[in-house]
């Protein structure tokens, strides 16, 4: 009797161990799948884009000719458009996000913080196509009628920067895309900033207040230095989003493949080019060039996002996680 019990228990232990091993391998397999997904994405695009890279060589990146009929593809206009729109977005979004984070952590009365914070986070959840439609049907006409004529008349004649702001008030163009992107990334950056500002130990802030600092001095001289790397990480996270954003930009950028200095002129970006032209790409070389563009976008965002993660980790480390 006792021996059968022991045998049963042993069988059970063996079975449990087997199940445990299987379960563990299943979980590990799924984990590996995540790694493979990213690697696979990069390699498959490199593989499909090989025709473009081998045909045009390094000129694929530096040439600004994008001619579907002549089968000449150079990505420079799209790359530059991506970088310029993202840069404009960051120039506007970073100070505003900082202001919002400051407001939500130090200025606003406590009862107001959660509702405003939630509202701003909801702004992050709205699909980008909605931003695009709003941009095209509401924002663009408004800019074309009321803002850009003034910009052209007043800033267009300035020395040095004048050429950036001179041009016909079409409404669509690089500057508009940058503005819409800025509205889109503000929620992302500000919620990261708010979260990292909240990690600053209250003791630290209270010590500064006890020494007679004003709120601004506490934020600028205590909170910001304490969270610097994470704040930069949040900014890079927003930058990654701005670089890869497709739909909102496609609506308002104008899909022009000519290089123009003026920010009021239509331009292009990597994501917008792919979204606009992929369905009509009729030759292998054309399609390969578009996938190669995707690969470039992937590399750029990977670098930016990796930097963001590394900087955000700095703060986590200091907190002892």
């Amino acid at each position, binding site marked *: 009797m006792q021996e059968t019990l022991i045998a049963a228990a042993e069988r059970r232990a063996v079975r449990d*161990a087997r199940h445990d091993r299987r379960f563990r391998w299943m979980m590990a397999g*799924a984990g590996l799948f995540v*790694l493979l997904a990213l690697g696979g994405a990069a390699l498959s695009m490199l593989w499909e884009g090989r025709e473009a890279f081998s045909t045009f060589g390094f000129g694929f990146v530096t040439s600004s000719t994008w001619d579907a009929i002549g089968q000449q593809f150079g990505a420079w206009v799209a790359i530059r458009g991506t970088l310029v729109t993202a840069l404009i977005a960051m120039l506007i979004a970073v100070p505003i996000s900082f202001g919002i984070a400051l407001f939500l952590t130090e200025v606003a009365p406590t009862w107001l913080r959660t509702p405003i914070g939630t509202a701003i986070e*909801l702004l992050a959840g709205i699909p980008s*196509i909605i931003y695009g*439609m709003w941009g095209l049907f*509401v924002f663009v006409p408004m800019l074309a009628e009321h803002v850009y004529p003034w910009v052209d008349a007043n800033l267009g004649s300035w020395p040095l920067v004048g050429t950036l702001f001179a041009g016909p008030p079409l409404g669509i163009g690089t500057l508009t895309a940058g503005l819409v992107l800025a509205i889109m990334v503000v929620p992302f950056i500000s919620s990261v900033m708010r979260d990292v500002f909240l990690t600053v130990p209250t003791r630290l802030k209270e010590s500064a207040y006890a020494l007679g600092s004003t709120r601004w001095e506490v934020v600028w001289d205590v909170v910001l230095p304490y969270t610097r790397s994470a704040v930069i990480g949040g900014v890079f996270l927003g930058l990654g989003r701005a670089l890869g954003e*497709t739909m909102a930009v496609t609506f308002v950028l104008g899909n022009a493949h000519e290089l123009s200095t003026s920010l009021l002129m239509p331009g292009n970006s990597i994501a917008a080019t792919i979204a606009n032209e992929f369905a009509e790409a009729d030759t292998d070389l054309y399609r390969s060039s578009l996938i190669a563009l995707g690969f470039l976008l992937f590399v750029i965002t990977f670098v930016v996002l990796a930097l963001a993660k590394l900087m955000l980790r700095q703060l986590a480390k200091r907190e002892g996680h």
Partner: protein
Amino acid sequence: MSADLLFLKRRIINAVALLLSAAAALLGLFFLGWILWTTLGKGLEAFNLALFTQMTPPPGEAGGLANALFGSVVMCLFAVAIGTPIGIAAGTFVAEYANRHWVGATIRFVNDILLSAPSIVLGLFVYTLVVKPMGGFSGFAGVIALAFIVLPVVVRTTDDMLRLVPTQMREAALSLGIPQWKVTMQILYRAAAPGITTGVLLALARISGETAPLLFTALNNQYWSSDLSGPMASAPVVIFQYAMSPFEDWHALAWAGAFILTVFVLVLSLFARLVLLRKRVPND
């Protein structure tokens, strides 16, 4: 006297900075309000029940978005059904088996990159992975592209939520002789369920508005189709196509679609937050 001046200067700087921060918050809310106002206003104008019963029309004819909405629902549900189990499994591996190991750290890092990677890139990936070998655009490819967006969100929330479960709970269960897989399935998942549910709902909210990855996977379809092996319409792609067109009645339909999409996403995100809140109170 100069001390007073310095004090005054510091107070002025402080006041200006705080005013600017309030202005920034107002600006953010202003644009939120503006975008919602436009979408709700123009959407309600074009809203009617025919949207749910009629197919997407050619220009100049009346119609609805029935096939597009149906396609979206089908593809999103399948994507969640595929992405969630894999995501939960990978999140479990990272949190329970490789938490302080370099493998876990690497998966976490890669997953975070995947989480913020441009969705259009994932669309291209699935194009080379599925569409090209299978020889044509299909709803199935769209499902996979969307599943790749669901995956990192679920991995991240599962990982976060499992790490919030106290270690004592695991130790108590293991000390009773329960095998680890049972501990994970029946105890840890139960404790982490509200958080994981929130993650899945947020992922659903995100993919229901995704356009870019569907452009070259599921493509579009003017007719009713429940066949996942052929091209399939989806609400965001139809909205994109109609909004970019020069036709007024297509614009109206696009706004109606945008309205449905926005309301759905906002309600879902609020609901997801509520799930997390409701459960958190008794746990504390």
